């Protein structure tokens, strides 16, 4: 990293070595250099596995969405609760997230391709001489974790970072805290609507209040399951989602008419696994969420009656429907239903029942208002008004249309006394990458330097140091 004539020590040094911020989530993994405003690398945490030429192959990144492969199956190293289940694969996926766009794959690392072998004094040979085969040998690493990450998982994380990746310095930060930082707050109630989880994290003076951390599985994937349930019950006929890869061409049809598409078939031994199809259906569903789904903005539940005596349901029905076309050309207008699929985030009774769904019917305690109530119940009475005045909304699923309006109404109903103020960035990237951005800010602060756990400290104290240092 040094130019040929090394600058004076004071000129540039540690501050300029950009740390890497890695924010692993259930659905996507974000990685980038500290100090930047968005992660350079955004990859799905899902990875694909298939057999070719008699050996198992793995694919990572966006590639899994684009090219179907024979017998391809999709897996996720992270469990539904946001805690890593398959450490070997988690390590590989995470490693891909920063080697693909940031540090370069090991094979193409300039240092190991003979650059230093050239006997040319014009070329700096002192460049990272100490670096070995490890991908992060010259970058400090800041990683994020869920607020309920168990001790074992934290220790395992630092172990991977230190021993497998060879990072010189490491820190593990709670994503709730970082999302608060991203919003410019040291104290906040962070409402994170992710893919597999929604979580409430009270943060006070940059410290997580552990007793107040609440989470439930009603995230984006749950909403998808509700949409599927809706499709199943759709009239005149149930809607099946056929992903693009199974369709060779489609013909325009009238709304509500059966699709006329030419389908592709794969021989049975080559057809991609059902998990692959599910992943690509999920793509269509997220498009559906973007284009069609809307949160009933409140006030009151969708099932309640509005101030004018007209039921909210009626109101929803009178609003213009949104059309959506599926990959096979089937298209339909969605009316009040588009409010219904997310209603159970606030009102468990409104859930669309689907016996086949992997999600059990939600309980009222899992809904957002109850979670927030429980979370605030777990923290000191004195700071509750302060937290309510600083509610930070983050997570990609919070981008559902009308979500913050509804949350605002719900909170005002729950807590009529103190002033409720929601801070939700309007910028899509800021909302989606809240915890990454917070990490980017934190790691680039000059004062943060004393917080890093150095390799030496790790060697001295072992993996348990992460418990002492990263509170």
């Amino acid at each position, binding site marked *: *990293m040094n*130019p040929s*004539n090394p*600058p004076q020590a004071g000129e*540039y040094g540690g501050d*300029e070595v950009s740390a890497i911020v890695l924010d692993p989530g259930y659905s996507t993994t974000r990685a980038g*250099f500290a100090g930047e405003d968005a992660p350079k*690398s*955004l990859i799905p945490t899902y990875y694909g596995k298939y057999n*070719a030429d008699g050996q198992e192959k793995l694919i990572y990144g*966006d590639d899994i969405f*684009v*090219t*179907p*492969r*024979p017998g391809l199956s999709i897996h996720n190293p992270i469990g539904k609760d946001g805690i890593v289940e398959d450490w070997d694969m988690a390590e590989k996926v995470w490693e891909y997230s920063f*080697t*693909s*766009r*940031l540090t*370069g794959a090991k094979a*193409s690392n*300039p240092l190991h391709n003979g*650059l230093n072998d*050239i006997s040319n004094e*014009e070329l*700096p040979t002192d460049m990272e001489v100490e670096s070995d085969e490890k991908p992060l040998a010259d970058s400090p690493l800041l990683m994020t974790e869920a607020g309920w990450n168990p001790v074992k998982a934290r220790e395992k994380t630092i172990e991977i970072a230190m021993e497998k990746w060879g990072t010189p310095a490491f820190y593990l930060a709670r994503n709730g805290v970082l999302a608060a930082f991203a919003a410019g707050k040291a104290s906040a109630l962070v409402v994170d609507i992710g893919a597999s989880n929604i979580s409430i994290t009270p943060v006070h003076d940059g410290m997580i209040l552990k007793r107040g951390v609440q989470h439930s599985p009603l995230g984006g994937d749950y909403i998808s399951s509700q949409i599927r349930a809706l499709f199943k019950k759709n009239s005149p006929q149930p809607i099946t989602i056929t992903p*693009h890869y199974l369709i*060779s*061409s489609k*013909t325009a*049809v*009238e*709304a509500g008419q059966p699709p006329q598409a030419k389908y*592709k078939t*794969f021989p049975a031994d080559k057809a991609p696994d059902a998990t692959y199809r599910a992943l690509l259906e999920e793509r269509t569903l997220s*498009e559906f969420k973007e*284009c069609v789904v*809307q949160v009933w*903005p409140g006030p009151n539940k969708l099932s309640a009656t509005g101030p004018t005596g007209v039921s909210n349901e009626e109101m929803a029905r009178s*609003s*213009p429907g*949104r*059309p*959506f*076309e599926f990959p096979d050309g089937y*298209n339909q*207008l969605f*009316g009040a239903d588009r409010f219904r699929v997310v209603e159970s985030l606030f009102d468990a009774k409104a859930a669309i029942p689907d016996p086949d769904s992997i999600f059990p019917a939600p309980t009222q305690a899992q809904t957002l208002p109850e979670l927030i109530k429980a979370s605030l119940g777990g923290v000191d009475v004195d700071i509750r008004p302060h937290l309510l005045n600083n509610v930070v909304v983050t997570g990609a699923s919070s981008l559902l*249309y009308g979500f*913050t*309006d509804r949350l*605002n109404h719900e909170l005002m109903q729950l807590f009529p006394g103190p002033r409720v103020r*929601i801070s*939700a*960035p*309007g910028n*899509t990237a800021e*909302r*989606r990458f809240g915890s990454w951005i917070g990490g980017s800010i934190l790691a680039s602060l000059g004062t943060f330097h004393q917080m890093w756990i150095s390799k030496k400290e790790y060697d001295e104290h072992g993996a348990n140091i992460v418990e002492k240092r990263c509170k």
Partner: protein
Amino acid sequence: MGRRPTTGRGRKAAAAARAAPIYPDRQLTKMPPFKDEHILLIAPGSQMTLAQLGLPETFTPARFRFPTRMFPAQKEGEYEPYRIRERRNEVKISNGNGAPKETPKEDVEMKDAEFAGQDGAANKPEGEGADGAEKPQETTQVIEEVLYEEDVTTEEGAVYPIQDGRIVDWPCFYALLTHIYNALSPPFHTPILMIAQPVWSARDREAITQFIFEKFKVPGFSLIDSALAACYGYGVQTATVIDVGKSKVDVTAVTDFAVNEHGRGIALQGCGGDAMTDRLLELLGPRGFTREMCEQLKRSNITEIVPPGTPLPGAAATARQGSNPATAATTGVDGNDSAPRGPGEGTQTGTETNGEEDEGVLDVAAIVSGNTTEYLANMEKDKSAKKGSAADPRSKLPNNKKEKAAFQFEEFVPMEEESAAGGAKRYTRHNREIEVGVERFLLTSPSQQTGDRLSSGILEDIATQVHHTILAVPDATKRSELWDSLIIVGCGSKVRGFTQALLGVITQKFILSPSATIFTSEIPSTFSTPLPTGGTNTPALMGQGQPGPMYHPAAHGVNPLLVAATHNNPGMMPGTPGMDPNVASQHYRSSGHSQTPTSAKTLRLPEYFPDFKDQGNSNAPGASAGPSGASQGGHGTEEACFLGAQMAAKVFFVLDQGLTKGYMSRVEYNDNGPSAIHEFTL
């Protein structure tokens, strides 16, 4: 590293001495302006690296094309640009032939100092971008070189430092950069702008930055992303750039001059020009075609991608199986007769150039001064007139109606007679005509040996990637515009019909039917767009104005006027930069946003770059097959990236002189190290 002393060195040293007292410890505040003619542009690619020193008055295609490969030198770890064969020979030929990008056999040779010095000679627009137009510039030179001679006939042992856009061999890549730098021999005060491949990681860029600053001591350096460069070239701020390269495709969504890294299709493998050649080889291999033949067939003007669903001429059904005996490859006229006749083959690589028949020699002067395509077309006409008997009525048919067509295959054949120099083995380019059947239309059809991919042909893979990339753009209101602003660059896209066929696949798979979009944003509402943070306009209030009919779409026929409106609204003025025809409709969306795409279009390159005009999307100028060959020029060129890089260089280095952080200066490099390049690159 294969450097040799050049006379340019001396000049540079002089310049250094002159420049040194002028800029002692200059601070960052103001850089001295750079001159147009001093700017060095380098565009590394997997196959060809384009380079140019100086910005001409009107921007032209790259002046120099270097094959992106080096040969190991005798000394370990060093590389030579030419394949050297040991010989007892005292002469060496340099034909400073601007080989078009996709001709692997061609070697750009420049006797470093001499050639780069003569700017005038280089000013000619070289290599009209396609094979046939490649105009041999016979700058024959005799050089004292004992024992070694260049071997142009084979690339055996070549090291390709860039594969699929990735730099796989750094020492070789550096050697190539050094070779290019020395060959062009820029003066001391030369900033460099390099077009960066999307696949290069942040560390890669730092390494290149470091190398450029340390090795060439440049006063300024910048990297521009290839997709962004294409947007500059087209003069648009929002576009989807599809870069079809040798063996990979990059798909990038650019919004407001910002590259969307997320969802970007980077180095999509098995989709480039090589994949098409492979497919041809698969079809024709059993017929005795070599890969080289297929490569040349792909580039010939008889090869064409027909839009999906188009019936193939003749016995298409059987030809698809590759079993039509009638299309068996036939070797054409005997080589010696036909050799000098084909377009652009006049170059002899032997020592003497006088061994050619007159009719085979292209009049370089005529080409340079006059209208190239016309000239070549005339050549072509003469040729077919001479053939006489071949002029049966079928030849009047457009290429895509003909069942069979022939192309000129060019190969190296050793020359028999003894040369004056003695001992030197010389080669001549030798042409023969090869006839192929409808296989030439099938080069994007799904391959039999799919390997580990369940691909349905490269066009579908690319289309899927485009869909994925655009869907990943966070600003949903931009997606419709992105679909209507497709830019297709890269030499892989030069095969005739590529653009139309790709658009055809996109239409088949992704374009939404009018009934799915008719009820969306186009209906004006009196409410403005609610803010994502929750404005006061609650959607519950909306739509009171349009009850009833909107709600039961199936019950009503689709109003044809509205259909027309939906379909015409985007891109009314294709190529108009900065215009977003959707602004009005997006503004009035009732909630969320509407699905895309309702249409897909390609952009047109601005017409004020005449040199870039006639290149696009036809394999070869002077196409013999009549009307379809001539009318292909409309689409933009595949080298718009280079055009954009010239514009960017003009802006970064000359116009704003670093005010917008368009490039990194030497001072900033010294202060901040290579990692600071990320603050400057675009």
